[in-house]
């Protein structure tokens, strides 16, 4: 029986692990990877105390910091598949067949990339449909590409593609782009970028590989087709909270509803921090701070029992 089990190895999970170990709480951390979604970031420039770090090095920094702590058990690589209530405690079952018992839990499972859910997306995943522009942009050298999503991630994907792709279409379902004004300005100057607003992607088509994309212009109702070799999907994220079932209350997007003073979820004994929660701003620094808040509250809770 653990007093405290942390689920997740991003900035929230690792911050919780460090604080729990220093409080000498009998704890464990289960994760499938370190660093969270920033792992694939080329350069993080806002992690406080660090001017510039790649996502890869960031994940190592977190892992090293956690492993330097004494008294926390780390289950890696493993993934929590379900959590059940059992005699006032919790039973945590993992992919690797482990069953852990815990008095308290911190859910720090973050979020994952949202998919378009249109015909052709799954079929052509990796065959022209891509989710990591910084990884895969060079493979689209001399190929026409489309980026779906006009937020920061979409704009950055366009920027990553500029060096390789001769023609880039940016499709945004809303009436205006949403990302950073500076990046918007930069992209607006590029002759090879064409922006389509009010454009809802409806289908990805192809043969062996992607050959095109269909979209609907919501203003005119017209269906249109673009000839492209690649489609980069950058339309936000979904919280990794399905494994909790109905154990805690969630909002309409699946984010865990928490008390923002203590990070407590609706179920006694469960706390949550980071992108899996209904926190307004999804940021590494905030995730880490919120997880610390949770551990301090859990420490008080355990001492009162």
């Amino acid at each position: 029986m653990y007093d405290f089990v942390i689920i997740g190895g991003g900035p929230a999970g690792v911050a919780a692990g460090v604080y729990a170990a220093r409080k000498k709480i009998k704890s464990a951390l289960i994760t499938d990877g370190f660093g969270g979604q920033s792992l694939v970031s080329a350069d993080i420039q806002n992690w406080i105390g660090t001017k510039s770090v790649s996502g890869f090095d960031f994940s190592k920094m977190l892992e090293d910091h956690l492993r330097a702590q004494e008294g926390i058990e780390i289950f890696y690589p493993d993934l929590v598949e379900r959590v059940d209530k059992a005699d006032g405690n919790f039973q945590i079952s993992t992919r690797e067949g482990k069953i852990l018992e815990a008095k308290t839990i911190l859910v720090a499972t973050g979020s994952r990339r949202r998919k378009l859910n249109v015909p052709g997306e799954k079929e052509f995943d990796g065959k022209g449909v891509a989710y990591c522009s910084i990884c895969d942009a060079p493979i689209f050298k001399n190929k026409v590409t489309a980026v779906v999503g006009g937020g920061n991630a979409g704009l950055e994907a366009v920027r990553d593609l500029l060096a390789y792709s001769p023609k880039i279409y940016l499709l945004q379902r809303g009436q205006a782009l949403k990302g950073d004004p500076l990046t918007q300005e930069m992209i607006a100057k590029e002759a090879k970028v064409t922006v389509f607003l009010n454009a809802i992607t409806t289908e990805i088509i192809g043969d062996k590989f992607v050959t095109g994309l269909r979209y609907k212009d919501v203003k005119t109702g017209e269906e249109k087709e673009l000839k492209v070799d690649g489609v980069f999907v950058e339309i936000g994220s979904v919280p990794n909270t399905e494994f909790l079932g109905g154990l805690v209350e969630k909002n309409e997007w699946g984010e865990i509803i928490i008390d923002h003073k203590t990070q407590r979820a609706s179920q006694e004994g469960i706390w949550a921090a980071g992108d899996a929660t209904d926190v307004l701003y999804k940021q590494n620094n905030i995730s880490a701070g919120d997880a610390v808040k949770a551990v301090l509250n859990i420490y008080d809770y355990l001492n009162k029992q």
Partner: protein
Amino acid sequence: MKSIKIYSTPACVYCKMAKDFFKKNNIQYEEYNVAEDEKAREEMVEKSHQLGVPVIDIGGEIFVGFNRADLEKALELK
């Protein structure tokens, strides 16, 4: 000893993880940067029938992405 090739791009994190994994296990590999090397890029697409990196070729067995458990199995490390 199986010959090992990795097709990668410079900024790809999972490529770095795969290379780290090889280094940690003292496994020799050949790296092809498909951002520069067009011939290698074609070879990669032909072998993997897809356009994502990394692609890892372990003695003819093709892996897309980095999955530690799969590589350990293919290299008989465990």
